[in-house]
């Protein structure tokens, strides 16, 4: 059996008056059934766009300009309206960032749950409500019967995100794409939601793509990580490999920039500069102006994601796997 999801050379552009901007540029990764992948990067890296591109839900003026998204053997990029509608919320669900904005304020929770089920199966309101109740119980909403009649503003942020998770689970999807699901929440609630998500994905055998800027969160939940920078995957591999043994200079910098409480008060490792905006992505490797191990080739040739001899991670960097491995000392500023 093939992969559940195979994203290959995905490319998304935004058609603007001054010309097309490339938001993601050749993103590839795979996901198996029940597998969890973390899509990590800073704002503007294109991780959310990737998530939305999978279910072909990029808001105008963005459009998918190349590549394929093979889900369960079918290419989703070629699907038209009705075919795609059948995928969304049914086979692939999404969880959004801000639970305060995700639920429609003028419709009851019950309506918003029932309509999702009715959109995908021929089912009575009664039967749909029964499934809704079951899912609300799964996400540990107290007294769910009463909750179905209530409106979103009667819930706290944490509760709303649970409801969103319940909606995502309604049709027993094979894959959930969670776009920064806990960024807007407090740390204790974040821990609750993440644990819930992890437990549910494990017990239901659901695949998960967790999009976040927070490496620490990803490290708790996913088996694989893909690190994105300026619209490209720069490093991909198993979670423990990425965290414990990052190869790409960007991933290394990112992990070392995190204050981890091991040596308080010392200067943090900082990556100089900022991520380029889409308008002026540098030629060659887009990371090279900030890179400490760059060579001449990085200035004009864009590196591809490849296997690095001797390592399990894939990385997109010219300077890796050369005769002389860059050592800690080389990388010092």
């Amino acid at each position, binding site marked *: 059996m093939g992969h559940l999801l195979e994203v290959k050379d995905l490319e998304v552009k935004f058609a603007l008056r001054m010309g097309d901007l490339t938001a993601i540029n050749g993103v590839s990764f795979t996901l198996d059934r029940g597998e969890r992948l973390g899509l990590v990067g800073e704002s503007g890296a294109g991780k959310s766009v990737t998530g939305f591109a999978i279910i072909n*839900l990029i808001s105008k003026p963005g459009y998918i300009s190349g590549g394929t998204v093979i889900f369960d053997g079918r290419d989703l990029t070629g699907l038209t309206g009705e075919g795609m509608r*059948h995928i*969304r*919320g049914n086979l692939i669900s999404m969880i959004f960032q801000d639970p305060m904005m995700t639920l*429609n304020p003028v419709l009851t929770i019950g309506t918003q749950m029932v*309509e*999702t089920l009715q959109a995908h199966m021929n089912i009575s309101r009664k039967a749909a409500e029964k499934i809704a109740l079951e899912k609300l119980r799964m996400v540990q909403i107290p007294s769910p019967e009463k909750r179905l009649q209530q*409106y979103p503003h009667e819930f706290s942020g944490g509760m709303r995100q649970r409801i969103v998770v319940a909606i995502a689970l309604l049709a027993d999807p094979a894959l959930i794409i969670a776009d920064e699901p806990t960024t807007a929440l407090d740390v204790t609630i974040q821990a609750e939601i993440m644990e819930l998500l992890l437990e549910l994905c494990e017990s239901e055998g659901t695949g998960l793509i967790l999009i976040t800027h927070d490496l620490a969160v990803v490290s708790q939940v996913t088996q694989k990580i893909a690190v994105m920078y300026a619209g490209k995957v720069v490093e991909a591999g198993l979670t423990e490999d990425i965290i414990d043994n990052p190869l790409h200079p960007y991933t290394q910098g990112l992990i070392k920039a995190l204050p981890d409480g091991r040596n308080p008060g010392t200067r943090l490792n900082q990556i100089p500069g900022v991520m380029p905006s889409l308008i002026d992505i540098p030629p060659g490797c887009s990371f090279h102006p900030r890179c400490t191990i760059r060579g001449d080739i990085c200035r004009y040739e864009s590196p591809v994601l490849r296997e690095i001899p001797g390592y399990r991670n894939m990385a997109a960097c010219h300077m890796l796997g050369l005769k002389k491995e860059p050592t800690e000392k080389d990388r010092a500023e």
Partner: protein
Amino acid sequence: MFAFAVRRITQAIIVMLVIGLLGFSIKQKIGDPVRDIVGVSVSVAERDALREKLGLNDPFLTQYVRFIKNAVHGDLGMSFFFKRPTLEVILSKAPATLELVFASSLIIILLSIPLGIYTAINPRNLPSRIIMGGSIVGVSIPVFLTAIILIYIFAVELHWLPSYGRGETVNIWGWESGFLTLDGLRHLLLPSIALSSIMLPLFIRLIRSEMMETLETEYVKFAWAKGLSRWRIWFLHAFKNTLLPVITVGGVQLGILIAYTILTETVFQWQGMGFMFLEAVERSDTSLLVAYIIVVGALFVVVNTIVDIIYGLVNPTVRITGRK
């Protein structure tokens, strides 16, 4: 919700008291109730006696309280010209104006909702551009000019429709209605189109911009991600949220149509309240003028209060917590 309604109604009463104060001050400053009752051909002594008898020498506040008391009982003074109670005069003219406003509102609502939604869903295609272009031309043409152009085309040149008056009306329980006869409806057509010409573009633009804003929200995006059908997303998720601001702004705007009836009624010689008001101004009929201000003020306040309460009923946040 109940507390919300109580608040709105209390506010409405306060506003009415203030309007009453304004109307009363105008009457005090520039009107002459004695003249309104007996005309000008009466001796000074007799007029002073009458003045005393009517309590016109009492302190301002006493007179104001009396004025409000009378107003609550439906007594807004005598019209100098008609020699009848002003409220009676106004009420006899009201059906004409209200029917005109009703017909225009109908045109506006029936056209603006589909056009507004259509242009919001397809912001860039050709029909939308034409509708939006037309709407900006529409708001730039004054109502009276539209009315004149309509008369020139359909009455003067083509002779299809009558150019003035209400035509044949039927009296049902004291309400002179033009809705029930073909002639009445023919007379109603041009004025109501003219009257709606100013608000229709505004409504289309209002619905369009609110709808476009709603379509950009996260919850609409989430609805797409849930795989709902486009019709459900547009007409339930997006439109229901569009409705809230449209009700608040739109309800008030429909009330504002009454202001524009003054212009329309003038052009079409439509025997309504607006036409009467202008005549009252020309004749310096202060009592009638003040009565008109108070009646129209009351109308506005009632419309606004109802709109607010409907808003409260539609919006679950207000319905449940009583807070806006």
